[in-house]
């Protein structure tokens, strides 16, 4: 048993040792532990003792058997690399995102930092109960991570609701200033980290690079719709997000604001001609 598993590639071994947290349409999400050797004690004799286990989140894009194998392989490679690239870009620009721990494009595995905390969705009223069909928020792989919430979960964090909205606005602005479009901004794709209480944007599976005002405005609009559909009476909350975003964007805000107004009028879907 042991010998057969050790002959497998290391990524497969890691997946085998991991706990499945949830499965979405695209990927399975696991929690696993990576050995972390602290730099101060690299002595060969105490290596084993001083290894700390660091939790990581593994996002495994499994094979889609309906797809032609070579198409499937190249798509998986592109998407894993794309997500890692977006995360790197964000990190370089100081956006709070999970750190990258490992990338294996051939196996389709992306390992990122485990964020200990709650999603913003669970911290806001209305987010705890699952809507049956809410149009804009994707069935998210991260949803099920922390399910049991207290009466007012946000109180545990010592962060006021308004302060949380400011943090959201600032992080999105930082991301947009780096020309990264998240592609799926919802309250379940943001987490508040325990202890440090900072806001982390997660799930860059649909992220891409764009300098267009249009794309940034649509990104904001998607979040607006997600707020409206998940959290009842959240208009003032979203207004808080926008005003923090505005402050951070400075001169870039005006064109985005104009376009956002357009996008709102337009709605998400245009009429399709038969």
């Amino acid at each position: 048993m042991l010998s057969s598993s050790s002959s497998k590639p290391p990524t497969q071994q890691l997946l085998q040792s991991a706990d499945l947290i949830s499965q979405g349409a695209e990927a399975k999400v696991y929690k696993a532990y990576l050995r972390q050797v602290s730099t101060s004690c690299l002595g060969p004799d105490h290596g084993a003792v001083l290894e700390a286990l660091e939790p990581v989140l593994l996002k495994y894009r499994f094979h889609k058997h309906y797809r032609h194998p070579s198409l499937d392989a190249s798509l998986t490679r592109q998407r894993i690399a794309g997500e890692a690239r977006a995360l790197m870009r964000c990190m370089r620009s100081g956006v709070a995102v999970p750190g990258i721990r490992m990338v294996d494009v051939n196996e389709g595995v992306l390992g990122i930092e485990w964020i200990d905390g709650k999603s913003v969705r669970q911290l806001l009223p209305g987010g705890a109960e699952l809507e049956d069909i809410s149009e804009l928020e994707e069935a998210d792989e991260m949803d099920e991570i922390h399910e049991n919430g207290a009466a007012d979960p946000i109180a545990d964090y010592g962060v006021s609701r308004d302060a949380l909205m400011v943090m959201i606005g600032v992080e999105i602005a930082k991301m947009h200033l780096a020309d990264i479009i998240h592609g799926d901004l919802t309250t379940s794709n943001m987490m508040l980290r325990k202890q440090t209480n900072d806001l982390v944007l997660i799930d860059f599976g649909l992220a891409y690079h764009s300098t267009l005002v249009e794309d940034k405005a649509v990104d904001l609009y998607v979040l607006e719709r997600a707020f409206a559909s998940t959290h009842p009476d959240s208009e003032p909350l979203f207004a808080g997000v926008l005003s923090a975003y505005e402050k951070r964007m400075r001169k870039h805000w005006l064109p985005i604001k104009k376009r956002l107004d357009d996008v709102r009028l337009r709605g998400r879907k245009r009429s399709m001609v038969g």
Partner: protein
Amino acid sequence: MPGRRRESPLKNPSRAYIALGLEGSANKLGAGVIKHAVDGSTEVLSNVRHTYITPPGEGFLPRDTAQHHREWALTVIKDAVAKAKITMHDLDCICYTKGPGMGAPLQSVALVARTLSLLYEKPLVGVNHCVGHIEMGRQVTGAQNPVVLYVSGGNTQVIAYSRQCYRIFGETLDIAVGNCLDRFARVINLSNDPSPGYNIEQEAKKGKRLVPLPYTTKGMDVSLSGILTSIEAYTSDRRYRAQGEPDEESEDIIRPADLCFSLQETVFSMLVEITERAMAHIGSREVLIVGGVGCNERLQEMMGIMAQERGGLVFATDERFCIDNGIMIAQAGLLSYRMGYQTPLAKSTCTQRFRTDEVHVAWRP
């Protein structure tokens, strides 16, 4: 959603209802008669269709298509009524396609419907073409509450039912998948008989080589126009052989069959992917494929594999119900007629733009 099962608003009829459906939103002219019996069962009494087929390399133009419909309308309707063994007086209502579709063909069929309604004093029911497809697909397959992939020459949508409305979760951002396939069939001069899509499917079975094409899914939406441009570009590639036979010696050639194969594999993968995303989002395990492209067996096969991996089921129909037909208009029309819906003569217009989610689905819980 457990514990939410509400009673169907549609009660079994006190007597049998019969409806005539007229469809002509694109190049197919269809007439069908459907019967809803007292025990709640549904029976297709007749389903007649005549297709306007253009020479290879040509698409159908609105004016010529409308002319075809005008020429054939009476023959097709008479045939449908005769096959159903009824007379026009037995009908409860006349259902016609209100939209979406090509303007001129829609108008000519709506005119026929109006005339018949006045002649025989039968109420009119305007029907959304897409809802017709969905209702007929549900009726034929018995799928209860599926995610619907509606793929045809004019539409590409992922739809799910929620609160008396067919909500569009994802759709094409530019051209429809059938349009993409048909136009490529024209480029490589495939026959339009019985349909360009069918001939692409047959050709693709001979293809082996997968050429790289763009793969553009955006959330639950897809974009197809770039793929059409790319695949067309391959026909002027140096390696392209229009008459290419499978040749063992020269490896590096691209045959039309390879292009058909690559096009299908890429486009259908995208469609299955967005359908799967919608299923995961809603938590549904059933998929129903409707629309003309829905009779493509490769698409059905890929959808089947996906559904199986999710522990779900795929429902699809054959060409009688997948391809545009009159019976689906009769089915959807009769359902809304039984809920008390009628289209007064003054409002019996048709429209090229009529979204699936604009229809109030009164007959479902």
